């Protein structure tokens, strides 16, 4: 790769691959739009860590509404529209991805307009996995009723200490039970070879994405959490396709070039932090800029690593898909979660943890059962909790967050007595 054009923004050094990323994401949405308009392929909705490989193998164009939720948050359309969902009985206390997405549908607004959509794409089938939360099912059932189409999925185990064979078997049976409905909608039979190919591509995507994230383990970190929340797009929406793998090979090359040249994402990196919890989508740029101005790299996160599926194995497609879905951080109990955070802290050489307590996402907020306190005691690293939300900015105070973050960094700076 050519020497990096050291173009920086106040939020840190810009990745050249981002231009390619825009093209990849545009092509993804164009394919869905085309499938919807010309009926060239059936369209399925899938939860972000759902069994997408089944859909790929059956020839669906796959749409991920959580990606839309993030776009609604980042564009701040969420706060204009979620009240419409609240008025329909979807509480402000539940997932603000759900309320912003349904609110946007009711209001006839979408950030997908730039890709030619006037509404979210209509699904022929909606496929969920409750390994992350129950809300995804309720979310999909709204649209299932709206469009009178089937809503199917996996009702998963949650809070697992260890993933045992009987857990995996139970999920495999549920995956098998989905196949007739999906085949019926797709009007084709599932081919074992195509499923293996989809799982192989998902695993390859997962490995490449993990390698990209891992470039932040070196000092200075080549990529930050804030970059990764954007760069993870293909890992979410194109898992199981060659396009995702192609993109991550490009990104990996750029990041490895940064590592070789000792170039960090943040100028003069002084401290390294771990982020647990959801991004605050509507404040992503402000937070990236604030951390960069304080010479802090947020080097790793639970969130971005949630699209790393080590268990996937094309030689055992359904069983490995089941295991991968159960081994996810969000589906685990407190003890394995803590072990994971401790391991990540060591691997990424962090100086402290930031926990985001997202008001409407208890499943991705690991602050509510004493984890920060236990982790601080176990690692002897300082911990900061930020109150906020993924999309509902009414739950976020800019000044509170700023003072909390600046005060935390001052604490890291003043490791000696005041």
């Amino acid at each position, binding site marked *: 790769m050519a020497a990096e054009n050291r173009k920086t923004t106040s939020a840190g050094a810009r990745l050249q691959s981002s231009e390619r990323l825009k093209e990849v994401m545009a092509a993804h949405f164009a394919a869905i739009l085309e499938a919807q308009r010309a009926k060239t392929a059936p369209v399925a909705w899938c939860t972000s860590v759902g069994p997408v490989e089944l859909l790929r193998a059956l020839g669906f164009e796959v749409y991920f509404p959580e990606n839309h939720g993030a776009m609604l948050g980042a564009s701040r359309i969420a706060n204009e529209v979620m009240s419409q969902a609240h008025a329909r009985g979807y509480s402000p206390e539940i997932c603000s991805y759900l309320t912003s997405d349904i609110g946007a549908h009711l209001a006839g607004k979408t950030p997908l307009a730039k890709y030619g959509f006037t509404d979210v794409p209509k699904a022929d089938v909606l496929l969920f996995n409750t390994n992350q939360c129950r809300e995804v099912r309720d979310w999909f059932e709204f649209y299932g009723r709206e469009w009178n189409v089937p809503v199917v999925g996996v009702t998963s185990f949650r809070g697992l200490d260890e993933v045992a064979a009987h857990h995996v078997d139970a999920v495999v049976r549920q995956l098998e039970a989905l196949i007739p409905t999906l085949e019926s909608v797709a009007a084709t039979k599932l081919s074992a070879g195509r499923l293996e190919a989809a799982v192989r591509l998902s695993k390859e995507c997962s490995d490449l994405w993990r390698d990209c994230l891992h470039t932040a383990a070196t000092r200075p970190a080549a990529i930050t959490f804030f970059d990764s929340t954007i760069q993870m797009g293909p890992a979410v929406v194109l898992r199981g396709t060659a396009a995702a793998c192609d993109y991550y090979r490009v990104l990996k090359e750029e990041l490895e070039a940064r590592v070789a040249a000792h170039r960090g994402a943040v100028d003069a990196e002084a401290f390294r932090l771990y982020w647990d919890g959801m991004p605050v989508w509507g404040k992503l740029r402000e937070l990236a800029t604030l951390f960069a101005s304080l010479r802090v790299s947020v080097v790793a996160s639970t969130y971005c690593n949630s699209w790393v599926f080590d268990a996937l194995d094309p030689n055992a497609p359904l069983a490995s898909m089941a295991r991968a879905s159960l081994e996810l951080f969000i589906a685990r109990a407190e003890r394995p979660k803590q072990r994971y955070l401790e391991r990540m802290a060591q691997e990424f050489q962090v100086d402290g943890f930031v926990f985001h307590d997202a008001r409407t996402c208890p499943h991705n907020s690991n602050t509510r059962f004493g984890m920060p306190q236990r982790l601080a005691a176990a690692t002897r690293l300082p*911990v900061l909790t930020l109150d906020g939300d993924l999309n509902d900015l009414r739950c*976020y105070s800019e*000044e*509170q967050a700023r*003072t909390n973050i600046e*005060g935390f960094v*001052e*604490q890291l700076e003043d490791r000696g*007595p005041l």
Partner: protein
Amino acid sequence: MTAGRAPYFVGVDSGSWNTKAALIDAEAAVLATTVSRTGADLMGAATKAVAAVLGAAGLARPEVAALWATGFGRHALTFADHSRTELDAHARGVLHFAAGPLTVIDIGGQDAKIIQIDHEGRRLGHKMNRKCAAGTGSFLEEMALRLDLEIGALAANAAQFQEEIELGSFCTVFTGTEVLGLIRQGKRPADLARASYRSVVKRVLEMDRVAGKVVATGGVVAHHPMVVELLGAALQTEVVVPPYAQEMGALGVALSARAASLAASAAALP
């Protein structure tokens, strides 16, 4: 006549309700402090506060070696040489009067903070209240309004309490409604004023574990001694209120300015 010994340092705490300023000298002696309403003009309030402390000590602005800012408005004070958060400022200010390990409980107009400091004076961590007025001065203002009292009369009124009443709501607005219901039931304003203070203390102590020596600061602490009494009773320990409790952020950031100046001077030595 000028008191103290040059160089002089000024700290300004641009708070949500009040702007505080503190002037110290080379020996960290406090020469003057001031507290005034912030209002909508942060720069104007800070400028007046600085003028007030300089005027009290007979000094002019050019005689000040460094002026640092803290508080929610710290980034708006463009004339400041540097800024630190109020977390740092309160910790540093308290350590001027007491040695760690200790816990600082700061209760201001819009926020409350708990800051843990170790035996070497290192800040170990902090908690701030959520985006909610419960447990802050704003809550007491709201309760005074409900009880038809001036905020300045709330403490004296509460001192006349006869019955302990528990206010159960988390939210300031809901608590206001709860208080109206209790008034309808014939509860006495003095008892409800006391209950308001109990509510503030309860909300603050929910934020973090507090053990060992406790030092309380902030405008609520300075002007509402019942909060200190109730904190002590709840924690079963003496709660120390240092001098300049309300101006502690301003004093702390002035001390930071002085420490930075000393460090720079030491670094410049051959």
